[in-house]
């Protein structure tokens, strides 16, 4: 695990200052600072095959259009509210639900008051890059210091298999032509940003069988260009997402496949390993919460990091239940789990204790099930099955079971959705131990829902 301090930018204090407290760029900061994404940009100008515009997109940092969109003044209000509640809020992101640069007026109209009222916040933006070149000056002028570009291929022929269409110069364009225009725009935009001193991160969605061989090449190119960090993310794809890949049965990589590709990325751009594929309306911490180490300086309202507690609590065993289809990823909704995998975590050691079947899963509905369809009796039976666990890790969970688990002293954990199980276990165990040592209710530090 490389640290910001020892990365190639250590000699450049301004870059260091930019990344040091940005949770998406600095692994250290991801444990201390919170970020919030403002969903002010509804429109999109292209169609990726891993995205269904109707629903929350699990690949890009954005929710679907159904999750609601904020007007600029509502977004400023939301920020003010969050500044009160999340004392370590440092970063405001613009990522969707569409593409921020397909809605430049809305995004920049939000940036202006934010910069005036909360100059301490970092503003960042994620884009597909299609309209990046012409937006670079405005990005700089509005004080956006961090930009993420999603770059999935350097080959328009591969691009054709990733993008269905783009809207470009008054026409919908498809195929290699569309992919070539997109690529040109991305690369022109990238170099313009770098020339203006903007910190750039590249996101690449690893799509097995489609762009595997492209990823190391992208890593090499962007590293040479001076990109700060490269995030290789696994495709998340399931038929019920209704995406092209989902329906066509193209699924995401295994942890091993992902690791293999990441291992082939040897360029200078740091490979990010702590990305949670946050949603565009997310608020809170990336990864582990360490709220206890932070306190508000009452006078200025600024956040001050306090030294982490010196005494490391002795590793006590933590018993955790995980909702996972294959044991690889945390990929099952609490109510849909037909069984829970039980693990004992002692320090960094993980021991699998087998599976516990659920006779009748708690939820019989589909993904957007209504709470009324749930049976209280099956929930109770399920809670009895898990009575000795300290926590339950699942991809999602409804409000009722969340409350019911807490009432029994079992911590519900849904912040590690689609994480590798082992990583989720380690993080959760660490958090629970810390919480035990400091006696804080975990729900209080889980961030805004």
């Amino acid at each position, binding site marked *: 695990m490389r640290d910001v301090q020892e990365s190639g930018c250590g000699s450049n204090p301004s870059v260091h200052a930019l990344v040091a407290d940005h949770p998406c760029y600095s692994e250290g900061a991801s444990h201390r600072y919170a970020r919030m994404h403002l969903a002010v940009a509804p429109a*999109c100008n292209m169609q990726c095959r891993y995205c269904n515009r109707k629903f929350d997109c699990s690949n890009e940092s954005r929710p679907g259009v159904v999750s609601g*969109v904020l007007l600029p003044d509502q977004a400023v209000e939301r920020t003010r509210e969050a500044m009160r509640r999340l004392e370590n809020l440092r970063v405001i992101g613009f990522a969707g639900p*569409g593409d921020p640069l397909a809605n430049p007026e809305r995004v920049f109209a939000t940036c202006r008051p934010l910069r005036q009222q909360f100059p301490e916040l970092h503003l960042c933006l994620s884009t597909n890059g299609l309209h990046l070149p012409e937006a670079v000056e405005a990005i700089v002028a509005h004080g956006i210091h961090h930009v993420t570009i999603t770059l999935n291929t350097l080959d328009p022929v591969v691009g054709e298999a990733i993008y269905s269409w783009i809207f470009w110069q*008054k026409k919908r364009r498809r195929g290699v032509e569309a992919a070539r225009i997109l690529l040109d725009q991305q690369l022109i935009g990238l170099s313009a940003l770098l020339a203006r001193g903007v910190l750039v991160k590249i996101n690449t969605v690893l799509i097995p069988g489609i762009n595997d061989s492209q990823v190391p090449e992208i890593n090499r190119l962007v590293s040479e260009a001076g990109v700060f960090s490269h995030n290789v993310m696994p495709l998340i794809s399931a038929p019920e997402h209704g995406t*092209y890949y989902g329906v066509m049965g193209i699924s995401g990589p295994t942890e091993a496949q992902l690791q293999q590709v990441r291992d082939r990325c040897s360029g200078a751009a740091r490979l990010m390993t702590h990305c949670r594929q946050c949603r565009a309306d997310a608020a809170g911490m990336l990864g582990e919460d360490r709220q206890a180490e932070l306190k508000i300086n009452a006078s200025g309202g600024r956040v001050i990091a306090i030294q982490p507690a010196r005494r490391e609590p002795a590793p006590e065993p933590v018993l955790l239940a995980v909702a996972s289809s294959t044991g690889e990823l945390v990929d099952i909704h609490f109510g849909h789990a037909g069984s829970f995998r039980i693990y004992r975590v002692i320090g960094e050691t993980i021991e699998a204790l087998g599976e516990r079947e659920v006779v009748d899963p708690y939820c019989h509905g589909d993904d957007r099930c209504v709470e009324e369809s749930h049976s209280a009796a099956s929930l109770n039976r399920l809670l009895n099955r898990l009575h000795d666990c300290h926590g339950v890790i699942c991809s999602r969970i409804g409000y009722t079971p969340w409350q019911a688990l807490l009432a029994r002293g079992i911590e519900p954990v849904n912040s590690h959705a689609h994480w590798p199980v082992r990583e989720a276990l380690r993080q959760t165990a660490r958090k629970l131990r810390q919480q035990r040592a400091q006696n804080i209710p975990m729900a209080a530090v889980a961030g805004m829902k």
Partner: protein
Amino acid sequence: MLALVITVECIACWACEPICPNGAIRVKNEIFRIDKNSCTRCEGHAELPQCVEICPVEGAIIDAEGRAMNPPGTLTGLPA
């Protein structure tokens, strides 16, 4: 030329609204519709109706005869 119509398939994604050259796309409570007196089908501005060109949803925009401007299968690439 008769104006286009937005159907219930619309997902309120806002893509069409800012690019209509005539400001014909009206939004009220996240319901999108085309003002039939303002829509010119983009004549004189673009070769093709701009809302149709950017809309991501098949069947969300139809013509006066009820024909989908983006028929099933044309946008997602998925078999209809």
